[in-house]
């Protein structure tokens, strides 16, 4: 054994001694004897000490995690993010619930007026929209929309390039334009602007030429091809047989039903409005991002919001004057 081997063995012995001392500190006796004697004389003591070790570890864990996260996020939390978080609107849930109740009350007040004195508008706060699609789904459920028909898709847009990226969700109902390009092209007056601004469809009048679909600059009209979700399965299910209440009529989507072969579109849930209820997309929005009301009532919530600077409408340049506004 040369000098180098001797020093290596000494170092090894030292580390063994250190390990033994560490175990003695924990268990109060030789580790070898503790292992041998444990079954017969001190199981409780062992469990108690093991619990102490685990307790200490668990107490220090949050600190460790916190420090670790701090280390990870330190690089990513720049001034911009801090400012962004600071600027994020904070909403009081109670206040939001009151907002829905307020809009509903305003709607009921508006419904007491003659139709020509109402002016429905929808406002969608893009800062609050999470892109969850609840409005899309509730619309499908409310209007019993068949496969291939959608009134309110949510368009997802990615902005920027990695690593400077963000994402925006844009719900797109029918814009209910004041100057709608889809209405005058209809050859048989199957679609028209109501006095309150909503664009109606008459499924019993539509010939299914689809000219209005080509004319809409927002892709807001879809054609009912007569497809059911259960096509190709043994039976049509009750949820597809049940009548919807669009335009206060019960369309069942059975063979020969006028809705099949017609063009369909969002109508701000007119059947619900007439019952004093808000459109489905408004009440089911988890972020309270969609507002609805009578713009002719200057005290209404939508009138207040329309007075803000941060609003825009899609494709303003076309002059279609949509009744759907977006807040940014």
């Amino acid at each position, binding site marked *: 054994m040369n000098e180098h081997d001797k020093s290596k063995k000494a170092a090894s012995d030292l580390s063994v001694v250190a390990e033994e001392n560490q175990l003695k500190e924990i268990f109060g006796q030789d580790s070898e004897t503790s292992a041998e004697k444990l079954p017969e004389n001190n199981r409780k003591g062992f469990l108690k000490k093991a619990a102490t070790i685990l307790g200490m570890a668990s107490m220090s864990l949050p600190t460790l995690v916190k420090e670790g996260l701090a280390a990870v996020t330190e690089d990513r939390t720049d001034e911009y993010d801090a400012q962004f978080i600071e600027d994020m609107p904070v909403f009081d849930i109670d206040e939001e619930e009151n907002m829905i109740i307020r809009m509903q009350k305003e709607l009921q007040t508006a419904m007491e007026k003659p139709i020509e004195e109402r002016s429905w508008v929808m406002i969608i706060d893009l800062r609050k929209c999470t892109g969850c699609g609840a409005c899309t789904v509730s619309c499908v459920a409310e209007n019993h929309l068949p496969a*291939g028909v959608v009134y309110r898709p949510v*368009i997802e847009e990615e902005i920027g390039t990695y690593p400077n990226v963000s994402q925006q969700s844009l719900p797109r109902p029918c814009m209910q334009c004041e100057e709608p390009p889809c209405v005058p*092209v209809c050859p*048989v*007056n199957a679609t028209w602007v109501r006095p309150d601004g909503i664009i109606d469809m008459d499924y019993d009048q539509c010939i*299914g030429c*689809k000219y209005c679909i080509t004319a809409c600059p927002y892709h807001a009209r879809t054609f009912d091809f007569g497809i059911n979700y259960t096509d190709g399965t043994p039976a049509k299910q009750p949820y597809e047989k049940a009548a919807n209440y669009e335009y206060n009529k019960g369309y069942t989507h059975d063979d020969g039903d006028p809705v099949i*072969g017609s063009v369909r579109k969002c109508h701000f849930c007119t059947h619900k409005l007439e019952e004093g209820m808000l459109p489905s997309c408004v009440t089911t929005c988890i972020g309270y991002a969609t507002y609805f009301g009578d713009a002719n009532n200057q005290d209404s919530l939508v009138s207040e919001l329309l007075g803000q600077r941060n609003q825009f409408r899609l494709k303003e340049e076309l002059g279609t004057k949509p009744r759907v506004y977006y807040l940014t």
Partner: protein
Amino acid sequence: MSTNTATFKIDRNKDFKISLGVSIAALLIGAIGIFQMFVMHYHGALTSYVPWGLLVGAYIYMIWIEVGTILAFIILYYGMKMKSLEKLTPVVLIAAISALAAAMTLVGTKLGHPFRAWKVFLEPSFSSVMIWEIWTHILFIFLLLGMLYATIKNKHVLMKRLSFISVPIGIVFISLVGALFGVVAARPFWNVSVMPLMFFIASIVAGVALLILIHLLFSPTKGTQAYTKTAEKLTRTFIGAISIGIIAALGNAIIIAFPNVPAYDEALQLVLFGPYWWTTWIIHIGIGIIIPLALLFFFSQNLKAVGTAAVCYLIGFSMVPVNIIIPGLAYPMSGMEGIEEAFNHAKLSFEYTPALVEWLVVIFAVGLALFIFTLGYRYILQPYFERTLNQ
């Protein structure tokens, strides 16, 4: 004279039987598509984002043939005094009526509610270009039938008057078909002011091409010098018409492409370099323009070459309406990018390739046109020709 009579006199039972057999076969095959469309409510590959496709394209093509043939005939016969075309009058009218029948079949099947078509007459909305287009078409149809009646009954004055009226009506009608697309501001590819003019030119060129074929196949003067001279005149007219068409198409393409606004030239990119580039470059430009022009320039004295050029043009141009309609629809409009992914379904897609059922309906429509032409020739024109030649 006896030779001429033998040539055009349809005692060619073999040709008649072949034509009738082909048309009936097409009708039977196509009837499957008609059944699927009307009874089983199939809509082919159309989607809510591409709501018009092959059937509308084929309808436009048949309209071009219907109106173009009549307009070209009247302009050449009455306007340019090509008196040798006189004997072709009933053939031209029967050809136009056959194309009309095909067009009406196609437009009927593209409707979601074909049995509500009567509403366009009884409950029309005159703010729609479509209504003006339909009504002028109906007027044109009455003029067509009136002209056929006047011809069969040898009422020349009535024929002349109806012809003169049908020119402006035909021009207005075909321009309105173009305007049907031109007024759609949401679709930049369609929304060009030259669209009505483009449709008029396309219609006239198609009409001249069909007129050449009618002259070469059915003229009672076949084999005479007058026959050859008329063919030469028609050939020159055809070259001129194609040239004007090329200039108009190029002008339109330049107006769309040169501003370099992506929203505007996206459709043009689709036409030229999209998945169906071959319909433009091979069928439309190759078969429809280059081959006819080459044949007309190098073999203009050869009547078979002229006839082949006319056939090539008619085949090549069958793709033009489809290449106007589909690219105008097959991409999301500006600001609406991502709409296809927003709610997934096969019927909410910008992808469109004509389905078998659509092709079957086109086969039915073409079969119907051939069937009407064959029967019309046999039972209306043949007795007429025999009567006039005997006189």
